[in-house]
């Protein structure tokens, strides 16, 4: 009897298990899937992905009819391009986005008037040329810039792209009720005039030596007036239909958007270049984490492109060894640096902790001594931090302004070599010695004991541990502290743990600037930028370093127009900051992505969207 029951039940279970496995077995076809469509298309694909921007492609496309014929076969001859951003896109309206992921997802559809290429050079995109003072596009007094739109550009719905759309986009973002996050690109814009259908003139309230803020780069593309007209101000939030499927001028248009999950694009038939794009469909998938994203491209080959792979260098290397994909890095302006506190953060000071004022600079007991700051910098092995902790995503740097190349100074490169002996000698010479035998030096009786804070992040904590150990070797003690990133960068004026309040001696984080012009970034270290209780701790001069000569250089840059002169000034400011050791730069951080070995034409770009030239991407057979 018992046996019957047992047999009955176990047979059911066995059957179910078999059914489950059986369904799984049919064909292990996953890997061979993307192949067929590519084969015929591959030979036709040009090997060089239009090396020189839009101007060249235009002259090439014009002359012969045969070119246009082969073009017909080119467009859409590819299969599906699978892109993976492990942070999924939440909206396709870049003006309402919550981060880079949304801006990049939108950049496939929406385009600005001009973009930055992978070297940080401006490329005319929807316009004839970049306006300058020389070609008359920028007014002599620097108060206006006139963009001439290329003829024949159509929105994906077939209507023409005009200067009205440019004017509208500026008004849309400048509306105060909207909460537009690109509004800083429109600083000082007074009005946009429509001269004619293809000419837009942007007027500034003040002279702008660098007038390329509005509509240059992926953060501030042009929206279609007809589509967004009813979405001004507070209504912007409610226009879900528009925000989820903006009409653009790019190579692709949206067919399906699932918020926080996936975007499906197909070819925009009205795209200006009849040869492009190659891929017939693009899927922009989100979710998971950086390691899983790297695995999908490098190990399983299921995805063609994965973004933002800040993972441990050893893990990334072992995945790349599988040979299915390539890791690409682009260096922008991000620098991981130590900020030195010039004011005294002693808790005994109460309300005056880390507070600077012109009347009372509240000097730090030992960090105001340049010798101490120099010694701290000399003791650090930047090469070790970069290779062991950042791998493909970082290289050592001695500048707080490391890029674009024209702005990068070479005057401070001595710091690349660690010099513990030199640092010790420097401190000994200055009379800062260990007088009580506890292994920590004293300056005027105050021990060199540092509170060193940063945000919670495994790479940062490892950096802290390395630095602490090097500082010990020069007789400087340190206590490590880490604060949750949301609180540290959150800027809540009632919290004592924010990076602005800086209730520590040294703090570490990364900062950068968007676009390629460093003017506003270099203005971060003005005296007036020092965070104090009077300005609700809003300000970017974390070191609380105030120098009249530096302020003068910033003022001078605001009036200088020539690129070379501006570069010279920026270098001078960088060197001043570095040679005074106001900040101690550690690592120049890069953006790391990976793409399949079959994908061609990727020009990894950190100045604009990584997908900026997606129209040129093709697939080859490997």
């Amino acid at each position, binding site marked *: *009897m018992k046996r*019957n*029951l*047992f047999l009955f*039940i*176990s047979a059911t*279970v066995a059957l*179910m298990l078999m059914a489950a496995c059986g*369904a*799984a*077995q*049919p064909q*292990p076809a*996953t890997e061979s899937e993307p192949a067929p469509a590519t084969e015929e298309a591959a030979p036709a694909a040009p090997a060089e992905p239009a090396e020189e921007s839009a101007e060249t492609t235009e002259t090439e496309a014009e002359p012969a009819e045969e070119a246009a014929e082969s073009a017909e076969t080119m467009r859409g001859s590819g299969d599906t391009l699978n892109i993976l951003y492990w942070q*999924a896109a*939440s*909206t396709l309206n870049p003006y*309402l986005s*919550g*981060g*880079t992921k949304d801006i990049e997802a939108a950049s496939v559809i929406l385009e600005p008037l001009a973009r930055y290429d992978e070297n940080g050079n401006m490329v005319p995109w929807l316009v004839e040329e970049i306006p300058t003072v020389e070609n008359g596009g920028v007014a002599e007094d620097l108060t206006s810039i006139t963009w001439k739109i290329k003829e024949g550009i159509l929105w994906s719905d077939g209507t023409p792209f005009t200067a009205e759309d440019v004017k509208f986009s500026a008004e849309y973002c400048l509306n*105060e*009720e*909207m*909460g*537009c*996050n690109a*509004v*800083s690109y429109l600083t000082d814009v007074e009005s946009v005039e429509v001269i004619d259908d293809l000419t837009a003139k942007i007027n500034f309230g003040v002279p702008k030596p660098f007038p390329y803020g509005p509509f240059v780069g992926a953060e501030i593309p042009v929206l279609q007036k007809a589509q967004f007209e009813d979405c001004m101000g*507070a209504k*912007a*939030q*409610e226009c*879900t239909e528009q*925000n*989820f499927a903006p009409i653009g001028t790019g190579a692709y248009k949206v067919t*399906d958007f*699932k*918020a*926080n*999950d996936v975007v499906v694009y197909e070819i925009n038939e009205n795209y200006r270049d009849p040869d492009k794009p190659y891929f017939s469909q693009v*899927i922009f998938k*989100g*979710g*998971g984490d950086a390691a*899983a994203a790297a*695995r*999908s491209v490098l*190990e*399983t080959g*299921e995805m063609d492109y994965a973004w933002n792979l800040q993972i441990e260098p050893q893990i990334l290397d072992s995945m790349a060894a599988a040979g299915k994909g390539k890791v690409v890095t682009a260096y922008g302006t991000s620098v991981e640096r130590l900020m030195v506190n010039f004011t005294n953060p002693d808790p005994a000071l109460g309300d005056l902790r880390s507070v600077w004022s012109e009347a009372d600079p509240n000097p730090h007991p030992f960090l105001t001594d340049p010798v101490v700051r120099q010694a701290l910098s000399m003791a650090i092995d930047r090469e070790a931090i970069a290779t062991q902790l950042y791998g493909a995503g970082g290289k050592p740097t001695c500048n707080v302004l490391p890029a674009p190349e024209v702005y990068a100074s070479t005057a401070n490169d001595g710091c690349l070599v660690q010099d513990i002996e030199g640092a010790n000698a420097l401190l000994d010479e200055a009379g800062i010695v260990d007088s009580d035998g506890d292994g920590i030096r004293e300056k005027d009786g105050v021990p060199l004991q540092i509170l060193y804070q940063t945000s919670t992040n495994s790479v940062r904590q490892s950096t802290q541990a390395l630095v602490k150990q090097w500082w010990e070797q020069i007789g400087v003690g340190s206590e490590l502290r880490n604060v949750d990133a*949301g*609180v540290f*960068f*959150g*800027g*809540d004026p009632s919290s004592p743990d924010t990076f602005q309040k800086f209730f520590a001696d040294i703090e570490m984080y990364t*900062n*950068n600037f*968007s676009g390629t012009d460093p003017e506003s970034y270099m203005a971060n270290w003005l005296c007036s930028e020092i965070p104090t209780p009077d300005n609700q701790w809003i300000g970017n001069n974390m070191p609380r370093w105030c120098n009249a000569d530096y302020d003068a250089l910033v003022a001078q840059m605001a009036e200088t127009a020539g690129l070379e002169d501006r570069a010279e000034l920026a270098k001078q400011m960088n060197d001043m900051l570095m040679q005074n050791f106001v900040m101690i730069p550690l690592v120049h951080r890069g953006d790391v992505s990976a793409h399949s070995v079959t994908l061609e034409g990727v020009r990894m770009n950190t100045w604009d969207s990584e997908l900026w030239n997606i129209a040129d991407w093709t697939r080859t057979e490997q």
Partner: protein
Amino acid sequence: MGRYLIRRLLTAIPTLIAISFVIFAILDLAPSDPTGNLPLTIPPEVKQQIRESLGLGQPFHIRYLKWMQQFFITEPLNILEETTGITIGDSESRFRLRSWQTRGPVIDLIVERMPQTLWVVGLAYLVSVIIAIPLGVISAVKQYSWVDQAGTIFSMIGFSVPTFFTGLLAIIIFSVHLGWFPSFYDTTHQVTDWESFVFQIKQIILPVSVLALFQTATLNRFTRSSVLDNLPQDYVRTVRAKGFREYYVILVHVLRNSLIPVVTLVALGIPTIFGGAIITEQIFRINGLGALLIIAIQGSDIPVVQSLTFIFAVLIVLFNLIADVIYGFLDPRIHYN
């Protein structure tokens, strides 16, 4: 029975209102900032403008009442309109409950994600119930046999190894090395013919087995101990003495009595199906409700977090009631007045 049900449903209302207040208050007091993920290059004044455009400038009680109105009046009305096609009042200007991340209506997000969660988590649940109950009964009837031993080991593994480990292990073995199944779930896939159905099965197998392993373990142990409790009881001996066959004794008498604690577990587990499997969905990139919740938490998307947690609360209260009702069917001695 009817009066009992009405009484229970009425007492649920104040409970749910209290829950909604607690959820709202906790999330409101938690330190989080919807502009926290924006790059440092965006100036603080702009961030302040963004916060105000999201309605964060208003005092707590106004926001709570607004949320109540949106959640209990506006959104149910919208759902009603969409399903029936009848327009009630001025539906265009109704102020909908919107996500801060996507600026789209929260309910649309939930509706979009529900099917994936029901498919994956629901299927895993079904599989685990189908495997766990028979296995638990066999384990109890054949105590200390090899089946029981194997079941115990299986349960121990399923119970103690977390899904973020088994999930990754499954991906590395079956996707990376063997290449049998995709390592993630293609949410744009549509089942139209046999081939696409096979693909759907293939992409669902890994997440379902990972989840089922975990749930089977729990259920299996419960069933086993419950059957073991019942086997030595007097009524079982009486049935056997009457000369019934053993499978009848077990399946009709013992199993029915043993199911009461199991039913509680299964019923209370159902709301968790809707809650999604946060970790598993994240690993396999399934766009379910669990993944939605975690993205919303990371992005400080308070309206989505509030709505989801509150919906889970409603489901838990509801299934508690359902479990109580099922007891009455399983054991006629339980009466509700």
